């Protein structure tokens, strides 16, 4: 029994059912505060604590899910290609904003953390904050940053960004859905894109495009900066 609890035979169905429950809760609640990743990770954590399973065992037993992360990053090329038409219509302003945003988001975060006197591991993990989790995790491995911390930061950033963007832009009286989409994609990656898709197809396309490009840019540049 004990062995079973620590094997993939237990870990995989556990992850699957927690994710499924998370998706159901998210669809019912209709707010990104209950994004599947938030509820699912809380569910799994609660179960691991009650059953007294060490996190390391669960992580090892989930190797199959990790193995699919690489192909999932590759799959991001598909929405990027499908939304290239957005770029053709809004052109260079989009490219400039995404490039600036890709640098701005982590820089501001790292500066604030420095102000608070955070340790190096925190600063490293923050550098991948606003890019989509699969890319952030592959970068984290490359720059030897804590994978779990990175995942947590990225997810929290996504939730904060997706919650804050629509009301903030309304205050700035920005109604252009392209701006809303791009800002969501840059600052709130996949969670923001999910939110953008709820607003409109155009908004979602802008978000998916911004998210993919922002992630690729960061992946190209960040290892050079940190490694150098």
């Amino acid at each position, binding site marked *: 029994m004990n062995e079973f609890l620590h094997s993939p035979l237990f870990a995989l169905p556990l*992850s*699957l059912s*927690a994710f499924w429950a998370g998706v159901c809760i998210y669809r019912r609640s209709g707010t990104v505060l209950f994004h*599947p990743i938030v509820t699912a990770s809380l569910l799994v954590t609660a179960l691991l604590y009650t059953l007294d399973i060490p996190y390391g065992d669960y*992580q090892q037993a*989930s190797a199959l899910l990790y193995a*699919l992360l*690489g*192909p*999932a*990053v*590759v*799959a991001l*090329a*598909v*929405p990027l*290609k499908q939304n290239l038409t957005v770029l053709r219509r809004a052109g260079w*302003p989009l490219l400039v*904003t995404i490039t600036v*945003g890709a640098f*701005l988001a982590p820089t*501001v*975060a*790292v500066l*604030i*953390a420095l102000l608070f*006197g*955070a*340790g190096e*591991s*925190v600063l490293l993990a*923050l550098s991948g*904050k*606003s890019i989509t989790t*699969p*890319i952030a995790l*592959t*970068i984290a491995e*490359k720059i030897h940053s*804590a*994978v*779990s*911390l990175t*995942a*947590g930061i990225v997810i929290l*950033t996504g939730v*904060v960004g997706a919650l804050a*963007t629509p009301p*903030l*832009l309304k205050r700035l009286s920005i109604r*252009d859905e392209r701006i809303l989409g*791009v800002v969501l994609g*840059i*600052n*709130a990656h*996949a969670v923001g894109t999910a939110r953008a898709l709820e607003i409109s197809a155009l908004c979602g396309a802008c978000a998916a495009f911004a998210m993919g490009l922002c*992630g690729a840019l960061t*992946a*190209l540049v960040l290892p*050079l900066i940190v490694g150098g």
Partner: protein
Amino acid sequence: MTLPSLHNIVHWLIGAAILFGCERLGSLASTILVLPVPGAVVGMLLLLFGLMIYGGVPRGLAQVSGQLLFLLPLLFLPAAVGVFFLRNLTLSDWLALLAAIVVGTVISLVLCALLLRKLLEKSGEVGRDE
């Protein structure tokens, strides 16, 4: 639920093979050329250029990618759970993290929005006909 036809399954398999193939190719290129970029990202760029040359997205690839991207949160669930088991961070680390995430995200999203509006106005592309 209707059973997928053999035709569809072949399409899906081809789509999955393209994804895995690009990932392997990207990883290989990343190791051989000692690139600082993660192999999977090289694979993503390879696929993007491939699709741009091909001029479309094969149906099977679009479906498999859609499924995989829907399942994304599941794939990084184990990593996300790890946050609750972090022990080596001090309280001030946590505070710095929270401040950086919340304040940093708000600052950066406002600046991005203002910048894009400005640029769109400059290029005369802003939707005045709304």
